[in-house]
């Protein structure tokens, strides 16, 4: 005989009650809106960002009143004019752009062999070791890693002390452009390798054997088979490395020691040194625009690739 309803476990009855409430609040006829309801919290959260951008846009049209040190009430394009004409901003912008290009190229040169060995190795232990070596710095954060470089490269750091032991005078390894670029390459490597890896995994190993059995040596196999097939991965990785290094703050600040400012450092200084919020907002918005255009162009040309979220087609 069927047991009476009261003998059902409490959790069942609880769940039934919740279902009844849910059905009452959200009848089945609304079901088309369910995905939107599920997306709502994320949309609201990202909405904070949109509000912030809106606020920055508003601020960027107000100049700093040097008499009261308050933003002006009326709108003008004066900040944008300054951003494009003042030499300081041009220097900083070109330093960041050239720097991020160099960093992207070097990072990809190192990321590709790393990714390739990691994907192709037959040894599970080696693969795990390479993954751990990749994730550890990725999970440690920029400040601690930059601190490590200070210890290694500083004027009384390991490299200089070691050089001193063999009688070489200390070399200034820090607070210059190469130090910043080096730090950025180190920071970007895990991102680049992790974005290249899925693209390389997708290339069947037989393709390479086929190229080999047709007489191509490994260099030609790489150039004509692996690299072209890995192109989406290279584009995704290059894009991420480029935008992240273009907009980085911590590495130029710590390893550049104030003399090698990138755009983000200039923006920070506008807000916290000169207290010119309007100018800072202008620079930040221009950086957002440059970053979004870069991402947009690549997406338009090659699709969202590795970054895509959502239904697998």
């Amino acid at each position, binding site marked *: 005989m069927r047991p009476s309803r009261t003998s059902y476990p409490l959790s069942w009855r609880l769940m039934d009650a919740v279902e009844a409430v849910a059905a009452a609040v959200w009848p089945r006829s609304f079901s088309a809106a369910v995905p*939107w309801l599920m997306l709502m919290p994320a949309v609201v959260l990202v909405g904070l960002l949109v509000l912030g951008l809106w606020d920055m846009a508003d601020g960027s049209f107000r100049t700093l009143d040097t008499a009261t040190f308050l933003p002006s009430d009326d709108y003008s394009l004066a900040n944008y004019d300054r951003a494009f004409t003042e030499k300081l901003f041009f220097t900083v912008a070109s330093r960041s752009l050239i720097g991020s290009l160099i960093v992207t190229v070097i990072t990809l040169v190192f990321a590709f062999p790393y990714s390739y060995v990691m994907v192709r190795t037959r040894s599970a232990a080696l693969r795990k070791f390479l993954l751990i070596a990749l994730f550890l710095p990725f999970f440690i954060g920029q400040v601690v890693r930059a601190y490590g470089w200070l210890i290694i490269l500083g004027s009384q750091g390991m490299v200089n002390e070691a050089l001193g032991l063999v009688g070489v005078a200390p070399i200034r390894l820090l607070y210059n452009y190469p130090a910043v670029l080096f730090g950025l390459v180190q920071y970007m490597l895990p991102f680049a390798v992790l974005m290249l890896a899925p693209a390389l995994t997708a290339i069947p190993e037989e393709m390479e054997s086929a190229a080999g059995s047709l007489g191509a040596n490994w260099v030609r196999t790489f150039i004509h088979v692996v690299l072209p097939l890995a192109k989406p991965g290279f584009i995704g990785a290059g894009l991420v490395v480029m935008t992240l290094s273009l907009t980085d703050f911590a590495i130029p600040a710590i390893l550049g020691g104030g003399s090698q400012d990138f755009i983000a450092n200039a923006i920070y200084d506008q807000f916290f040194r000169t207290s010119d919020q309007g100018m800072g907002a202008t620079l930040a918005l221009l950086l957002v625009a440059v970053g979004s255009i870069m991402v947009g162009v690549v997406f338009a040309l090659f699709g969202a690739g590795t970054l895509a979220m959502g239904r697998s087609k």
Partner: protein
Amino acid sequence: MKGDRSKAVTLWGFVIAALVMLSAPTLVVLGASFTAGNMITFPPEGLSLKWYAAIAGATDLRDAFFRSAIVATICTAISIPTGTLAGIALAKYRVRFAAGVQIYLLLPFTVPLIGSGIGLMLIFGKWGLLGQLWPVGIACAVINLPFMIWAVTASAAGLDPDLELAAANCGAPPLSTFLAVTVPAVTPGIITGALLMFILALNEFLVSLLLVDARIVTLPVQIYNSIRSIITPDLAAISVVFIAVAAIAIALLDWLVGLDIFLKSK
């Protein structure tokens, strides 16, 4: 086969260079934290744990660590439900304007961190929320949310829609189906995403720097402020905390879902 040797030598040359680059700062920080001297020198002046004793007694460093932990906890607590729901919605349903929604939800990645940080600083400032820790946690959730959504959608691809239909066919109401079938199917993604969110928020530097004031500095900001003055070994010792947390997170990730998931092609 001919040329295999030169291939291996070339590849390994790059891999070893990359390994040195990746690991050198971590190893050096670890080594420096055990120095017996008052300065970080090379070669080290002997081993001791005195800098660990020093940080255990330093209330400012300890408080900064707990603040970072609170921020990371708030960030994770917000992003788990938000990212899971959004991820499942994107993976499972044919949402109208899906492409637009995706571009919108990728905004935290396309907007540079300095831009997001300043924007959030301006609106939190306008609403009078600055000087507290929970807005920093929310900010970290905003800027890293795509990681959480990505992790969930990636594992939802393995969710067979027939399973949900089967559950419904057996009489399970929608909410029960969701909790008993859909959510367990994406659990590996939720775990991966949550770990990423926690670690990234714990380490978050720039957005923290913009949103905190002198009374509530988080640990990365505290370290940044200190290395601008003098480099002492106590910073190395406190940095080891980050290294330890990162190691634990990697071990957890490997044990629960396997690090190999990052190599999979979609």
